[in-house]
């Protein structure tokens, strides 16, 4: 019966209910779309980190390698025996591991025969690369970070292990002609792990993008065997572990850490989003979380104040009604429930429309294919809002709680007033008058 009363009361002042409902609805839509944007950004960063940047879900490095590898590379690499020991540990966790990939990187020179350009040469496992490039998650969340030509032939590096992939920016700097499938011979030079200058040939045959503007003139990719040839070694810098779908990263990481502690050399293990190996991920998400938190605070405050304002006005107008309700036998709790349910009802109806509107707005924006340059990005990406039921549910619960608590607090304070004062409609929200009434 109280629900029925509450519904009728909402209709008594339609204009005020409508304006309050619109405020709640707009707040809900805003938070929902913001959440959809942050969710998309996180998923895109996650998948590009794991698959495009080939960090895997977990990366295994020699202890202190992150700080020391560039200074003393020979000391901070995994030799063949150590690689085998790690693979044995990973084989024990085979029910969780989908595949692994080895990497090694080195600063060096890329030469077109007439001039050289300083680059970081990144050696990758071509089998793992192919698997990563064809991951459904990568194509779903981060297609903008994969060049169309990369998807044309994921077997390219398996067919020709001499193939070098460069970015469009490096192609421009070294005056390489498009398409880059000419297998034009290029040379790479670097210091070996023993400190000698060495150079090797490679075939220019692919292009990629790093996704970041400041890396576009720096990173070249080539199968790991070529980098090992350049460095005169069979060692690797890191091993990336890619987990099967549904496997949680943190429990796996803890289990792997326990097992790795038992082998004969010290290692460092990192999650793909660890700031130590992925500052871009943590920096970008940190910024988005701070921004999201700020907007969350603003919108929640605005919604809360709107409800308080609307209810306060309603209560002032309905003071005598409250007194009457209590006079005919309604308990204080019943009156509180009535007003709280009015707020809940209004919030639920508003947010129901909010769900529909946010879904429609995000669908319309996605269909419009709006493209923009995120800060520091190398290419334009689509402005995508990934509407998500979990986010909608979270925002729904949050605003529901805010509406309920706000209305409860407002009505609770009013009901401290004496019944006779309510019936005479002489009360206000002034504490002094309440005290006078009570005396």
């Amino acid at each position: 019966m109280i629900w029925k009363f509450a519904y009728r009361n909402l209709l008594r002042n339609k204009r005020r209910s409508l304006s309050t409902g619109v405020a709640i609805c707009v707040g809900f839509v805003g938070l929902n779309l913001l959440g959809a944007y942050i969710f998309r950004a996180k998923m895109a960063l996650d998948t590009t980190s794991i698959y495009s940047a080939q960090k895997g879900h977990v990366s295994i490095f020699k202890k202190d390698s992150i700080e020391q590898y560039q200074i003393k590379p020979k000391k901070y690499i995994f030799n063949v025996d150590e690689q085998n020991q790690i693979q044995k540990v990973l084989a024990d966790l085979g029910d969780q591991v989908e595949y692994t990939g080895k990497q090694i990187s080195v600063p060096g020179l890329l030469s077109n025969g007439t001039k050289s350009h300083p680059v970081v040469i990144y050696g990758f496992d071509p089998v793992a690369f192919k698997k990563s490039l064809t991951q459904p998650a990568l194509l779903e969340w981060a297609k903008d970070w994969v060049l169309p030509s990369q998807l044309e032939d994921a077997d390219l590096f398996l067919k020709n292990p001499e193939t070098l992939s460069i970015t469009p920016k490096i192609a421009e700097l070294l005056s390489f002609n498009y398409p880059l499938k000419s297998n034009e011979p290029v040379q790479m030079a670097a210091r070996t792990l023993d400190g000698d200058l060495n150079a090797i040939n490679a075939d220019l045959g692919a292009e990629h993008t790093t996704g970041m503007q400041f890396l576009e003139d720096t990173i070249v990719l080539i199968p790991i065997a070529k980098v090992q040839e350049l460095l005169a070694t069979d060692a690797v810098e890191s091993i990336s572990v890619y987990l099967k779908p549904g496997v949680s990263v943190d429990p796996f990481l803890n289990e792997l850490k326990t097992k790795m502690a038992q082998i004969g050399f010290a290692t460092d293990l990192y999650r793909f989003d660890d700031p130590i190996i992925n500052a871009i991920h943590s920096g970008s998400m940190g910024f988005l979380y701070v921004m999201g938190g700020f907007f969350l605070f603003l919108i929640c405050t605005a919604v809360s104040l709107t409800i308080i304002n609307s209810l306060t006005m309603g209560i002032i107008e309905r003071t005598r009604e409250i007194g009457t309700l209590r006079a005919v036998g309604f308990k204080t709790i019943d009156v509180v429930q009535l007003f709280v349910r009015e707020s809940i009802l209004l919030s639920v109806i508003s947010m129901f429309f909010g769900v529909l509107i946010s879904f429609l707005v995000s669908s319309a924006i996605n269909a419009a294919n709006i493209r923009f340059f995120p800060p520091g990005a190398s290419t334009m990406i689509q402005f995508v809002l990934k509407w998500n039921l979990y986010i909608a549910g979270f925002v729904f619960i949050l605003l529901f709680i805010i509406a309920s608590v706000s209305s409860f607090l407002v009505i609770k304070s009013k009901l401290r007033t004496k019944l006779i004062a309510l019936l005479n409609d002489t009360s206000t929200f002034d504490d002094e008058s309440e005290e006078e009434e009570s005396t």
Partner: protein
Amino acid sequence: MKLLILLLAIPFYANADLATDLLRASDRARGSVKDGVQWSAVIETEENGDSNTREFNIKAKGDDAYVEATKPAKNKSEIYIFNDRNMWFFKPSLKKPVSISARQKLTGQAANGDIASTHYARDYSAVIEKTETFNGEKMHVLMLTAKSKSLTYDKIRYWISDKTKLAMKAEFLTLQGKPFKVGMLKYGNTLTAAGETFPFISELAIVDAKFNNNKSIITYKSPKVVQLSNTIFNVNNLTR
């Protein structure tokens, strides 16, 4: 007023001329000879507890130099070509030579450019900073500033003997003017060119300014004037 400016400028130009003359004279003893000259160099390096030895045959003529690694076996037949201020690296397995920087480390403390860069008078602007006594000899201390970014060092403080016109010490400086390597030169060889016999460098010891145990000693052996064809300095001939 004009006369005053002229009078003030004269010492500066005179100073710069003297500095350039000293530099030109000292370059000759390091291989800057118009006719072709060749020598072999052994670089012994000690760095972070590791030591290694590398050997090269060097042929230089005018602004060009041809450097071939002879030892150890794994580096044999590697070639460095200096064309004017450009430097190239080549080895038989490469399809094309690679353009490299003179600043890059060759081995230990020795940069690529150290092995055959002999034209300081051409590559650096020189001014005399001061005159002082070093090892009992009067020395002109020159401040050399690179004329191009492609040179081995940005700045060098260079001690040239007033008597012999030979460079005896070099401090290789950062852009901020702080020494990061110190080179000591010895002249135990002689070379005869155009009927004149003059001292020729026999040792360049390059020591890390901060970590004295990290050092490379370049020993110059068997210098002689030879007729060299220009074709050996042509980088395009490497791949033919």
